[in-house]
């Protein structure tokens, strides 16, 4: 029952989008988000959307999985749309009924807001779909490494993140086992009030935590035995290197940003 949990789902592949350096992709995502927030007109939104669709096609990510990622956001999107629809005034009055007023400006803002949120989420998903968690943590570590001078424990954070990712499947498996074991002893997780069901989780969480601490202890010893002594003087199996393809990606990103800024300047 817990097997379906997907975190940072990754579609392995060898497309140009997959081959990009994770740092490039992270930076491009930032450029994309900035462009998205600068966009004000149909034309500039169209430009950003073109970039997103292009990247999705190039990465061979099925549009179905892109929209699937939007599903949990549906209520949030709907709520934002309604708020913008009823509270923005301007343009011509389209509808006036009881306490509700809908203005043409409201329709436009609501539409743009919905589009913006959807594109924001899709863009982020595109990054996790085309970048393995390891590459992502690696890229983050390298990008944030200047912060080391400010004593931010960048390496430690990246290591924690990658170990957490490594142990997700192990701990899920363990949770499944504990649930089965408790069910075999007559535990009931499905009936009763919310309070009762929440209480029924205690016999799962306690053994899970105990075992997680034991695992952490053993893993720490095993890491020490393999000469782990922090990030200092550490080398990597796969060294991140910018290639021509990254240069092209940066150029496309710069064009996108420039395009949106120019359009904005002309009031579009």
């Amino acid at each position: 029952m817990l097997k379906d949990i997907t975190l940072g789902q990754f579609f392995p592949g060898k497309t140009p989008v997959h081959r990009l350096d994770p740092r490039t992709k992270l930076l491009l995502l930032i450029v994309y988000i900035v462009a998205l927030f600068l966009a004000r007109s149909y034309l500039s939104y169209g430009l950003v959307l073109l970039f997103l669709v292009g990247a999705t096609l190039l990465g061979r990510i099925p549009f179905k999985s892109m929209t699937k990622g939007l599903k949990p956001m549906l209520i949030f999107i709907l709520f934002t749309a309604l708020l913008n629809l009823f509270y923005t005034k301007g343009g011509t009055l389209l509808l006036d009924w009881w306490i509700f007023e809908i203005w043409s400006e409201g329709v436009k803002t609501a539409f743009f807001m919905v589009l913006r949120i959807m594109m924001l989420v899709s863009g982020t998903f595109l990054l996790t779909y085309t970048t393995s968690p390891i590459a992502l943590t690696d890229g983050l570590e390298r990008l944030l490494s200047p912060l080391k001078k400010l004593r931010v424990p960048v390496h430690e954070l990246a290591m924690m993140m990658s170990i957490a990712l490594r142990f997700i499947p192990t701990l899920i498996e363990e949770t499944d086992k504990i649930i089965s074991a408790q069910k075999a002893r007559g535990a009931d997780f499905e009936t009763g009030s919310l309070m009762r069901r929440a209480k029924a989780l205690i016999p799962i969480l306690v053994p899970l935590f105990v075992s997680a601490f034991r695992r952490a202890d053993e893993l720490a010893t095993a890491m020490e035995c393999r000469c782990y002594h922090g990030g200092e003087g550490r080398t990597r199996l796969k060294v991140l290197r910018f290639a021509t393809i990254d240069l092209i990606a940066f150029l496309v990103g710069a064009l996108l940003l420039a395009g949106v800024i120019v359009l904005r300047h002309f009031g579009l």
Partner: protein
Amino acid sequence: MSNLITAEKLSFTYPASGERLALPVFENLNLEIAEGSFTAVIGPNGCGKSTLAKHFNAVLLPSGGKVWVAGLDTSDEEKLLEIRRQIGMVFQNPDNQIVANVVEEDVAFAPENLGVPSPEIRRRVDEALKTVGMYEYREHAPHLLSGGQKQRIAIAGVLAMKPRCIVLDEPTAMLDPRGREEVVATVTRLNREQGITVVLITHHMSEAVHADRVIVMHRGGILTDGSPREVFSQVELLRQAGLDVPQTTELLYELRKQGWPVPLDALTPEECAEAIAAALR
């Protein structure tokens, strides 16, 4: 042959904490492990065999006496990395010693820590994975592999440090019979073909048979020490310590009790069958 590991008058006590009293494990233990040897350490639960193993690469430090590894004192903190590089350690639970979520990244973990240049890491990782027969799984996620395969990955991860000795602390305790066979075969091959010193701590007498030397521990001391044939023919002594003997030895022992003139030192089923056939003639 020179000694790779020497324990000299080793004493160790787990310090008291909270309600738990201090727990002495060894008193004046002396032990040498020869370079290139394959030593099995057996003993009942709580006899101190895992504690002893942890002294070999300075995870634990002696409360009294000294442990020398390749001429280095394990209590010398400056030599810590060098000691741990030379003595690789594999633990019981394969899940709790795999660090990365791709096989080759995990094998690369130790050389990365040692600051080995990237092309050299690549070479070592490929070589180590080929040695344990897991090369074609290099891009897999470890949690999808079987226990025996995971344990071989752990061995490869240690091999990538180019160690002189591998200490395995009950590496087969959580594996099925097939996984156990894979691991023992791998370890035996490493010892025979690459001359890596192996210390195998185990519960399974059938695994100890592959070693050139068997050390039996009991209550923090060494009960007996010798070749597998010498050790396993002391059936009464082992039974008193709460240990089993290999099934072949047990069969011969029972036959002998019934008055059959069979030797006790046949370890493989073939040797055992021949010994019985000779007695029948």
